[in-house]
């Protein structure tokens, strides 16, 4: 029987305030969390965003509808294609523009390639938090091969301003479909190695199973969408609920898991990555011929009619929405992005960190897939 003295108890229950701050080796993105700890356990966590705030919604009101395209794709740097798509969907809804069939298929292929590259980035960040360096190097290499495809398509590796109101800017270049299939075969052939090294590894299981469990009631009460919900068993995916682009013309399934902990969320990401790769092959087989865009009126003098609209889509992190109001003028009157990282990074993160150990902070933050520039806009 151990006898613990009074002094030992009072010293070990002292509360300290630590900053998991912006300059930290375990932080991906410019974000800060203030932790109150007792010993090794977190008692209270408070998220501190705002390091990347640029005031997009104010800037968009002084630039014209077309000038906002290069501005808007910088809201989230890891997957710029999703934000271009949602802005374009909002403008098309207000102006009453239609997209031709081939344009819808090309948009879906571009969005699925963006989704695969974003999931590979998340795999690098997550495996770096746990200490697996080899898997991170492979994931970054495969992501670079996809960025080479984007460079063939538009000329830029990261910010390709490809989606245009009424379609896409130009057609697929020659040989693009062959190259895409070769790249995806290369990634697909490496999946058994990923499984052996990381996903079936006992160390990953012990570090991620049972950590930061978010049940379905908690997730629905706090506004969670995306992997946070799909890891609890609900098949909520906006591409099935309210289909846009060409998602209702191919067959695909929504992967889910049961438990709601960090392990389930990461496995849902892995299953989605494999499903996206299969979907791109199906889309490339079914793509019709025809024009890829319908022309719009002169962009320098374009006035979108008065009204308001709310559109939503599914990006790699959750439900992405856009509320726009127009007064019949040359610029938006009010534009507001509903990004999925805002409820995940502020409400769900503070609840999921209570009672966990300090060394799991980065692990939990990355399993919820919190990307900082999207919170602040």
């Amino acid at each position, binding site marked *: 029987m151990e006898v613990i003295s009074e002094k030992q108890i009072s010293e070990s229950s002292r509360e300290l305030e630590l900053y998991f701050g912006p300059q930290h080796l375990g932080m991906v993105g410019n974000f800060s969390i203030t932790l109150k700890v007792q010993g090794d356990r977190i008692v209270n966590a408070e998220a501190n965003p705002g390091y990347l705030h640029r005031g997009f919604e104010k800037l968009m009101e002084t630039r014209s509808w077309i000038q906002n395209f290069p501005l808007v794709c910088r809201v989230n740097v890891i997957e710029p294609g999703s934000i271009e798509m949602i802005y374009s969907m909002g403008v098309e809804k207000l102006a009453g523009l239609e997209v031709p069939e081939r344009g819808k298929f090309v948009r879906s292929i571009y969005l699925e390639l963006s989704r695969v590259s974003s999931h590979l980035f998340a795999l690098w960040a997550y495996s770096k938090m746990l200490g697996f360096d080899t898997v991170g190097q492979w994931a970054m290499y495969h992501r670079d091969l996809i960025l080479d495809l984007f460079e063939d398509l538009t000329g830029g590796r990261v910010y390709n301003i490809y989606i245009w109101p009424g379609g896409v800017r130009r057609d697929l270049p020659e040989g693009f479909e062959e190259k895409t299939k070769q790249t995806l075969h290369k990634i697909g052939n490496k999946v058994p190695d990923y499984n052996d090294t990381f996903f079936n590894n006992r160390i990953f299981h012990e570090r991620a199973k049972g950590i930061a469990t978010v049940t379905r009631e908690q997730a629905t009460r706090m506004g969670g969408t995306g992997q946070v919900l799909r890891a609890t068993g609900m098949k909520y995916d906006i591409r099935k*609920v*309210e289909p846009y682009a060409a998602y209702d013309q191919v067959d695909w399934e929504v992967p889910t898991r049961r438990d709601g902990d960090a392990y389930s969320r990461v496995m849902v990401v892995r299953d989605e990555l494999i499903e996206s790769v299969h979907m791109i092959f199906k889309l490339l087989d079914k793509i019709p011929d025809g024009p890829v865009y319908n022309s719009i009126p002169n962009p320098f003098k374009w006035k979108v009619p008065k009204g308001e609209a709310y559109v939503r889509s599914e990006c790699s992190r959750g439900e992405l*929405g856009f*509320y726009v109001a127009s007064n019949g003028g040359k610029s938006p009157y*009010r534009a507001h992005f509903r990004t999925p990282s805002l*409820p995940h990074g502020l*409400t769900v993160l503070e609840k999921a960190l209570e009672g966990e150990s300090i060394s799991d902070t980065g692990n939990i933050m990355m399993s919820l897939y919190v990307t900082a520039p999207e919170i602040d806009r």
Partner: protein
Amino acid sequence: MNNKITELIESSFRDVDVELIEEDRVRVNVKQESLLTLLNFLKENRYSHLALISCVDRIEENFFELIYIVSPYMQQDESYTEREKVNVILKTKLPRENAQIGTAIEIFGAAEPYERELHEMFGIEFIGHPRLTPLFLEREYDIPPLRKDFDTRAYVEEKFGSIPPVED
């Protein structure tokens, strides 16, 4: 199927103005006093996902327009029905001076960060919110930044334009 929620709201509430603006979007104009009751009513009818709380500054007509967007999560685990596509957009008007309204946190837990952001960007006060501290901004401004009478170019010129470059 899409008109079901419009009939339900119209039959249970007087003096609201319900209209179907597109195929899947229902717009409801409601007065400030009955907003929270209507939100509670929608949540009990399985519309339990609060997607966004936003605000538009109508400076010419001199009011703020607060917007709440709610939609249903899935009702059954395996299949999708037409009902899940419908989003309800609730709008209410607030005066520009001294704008106050009760908080929606007890009904939807997801409302907390949106209300904090609107408080610092527009100056609206949400009564009963436990933590109305600054979220993104680092300092206080005389006029909250997203209002239409805050001129951002003049602010940048005045505040940062007068700092001299460093000379050897």
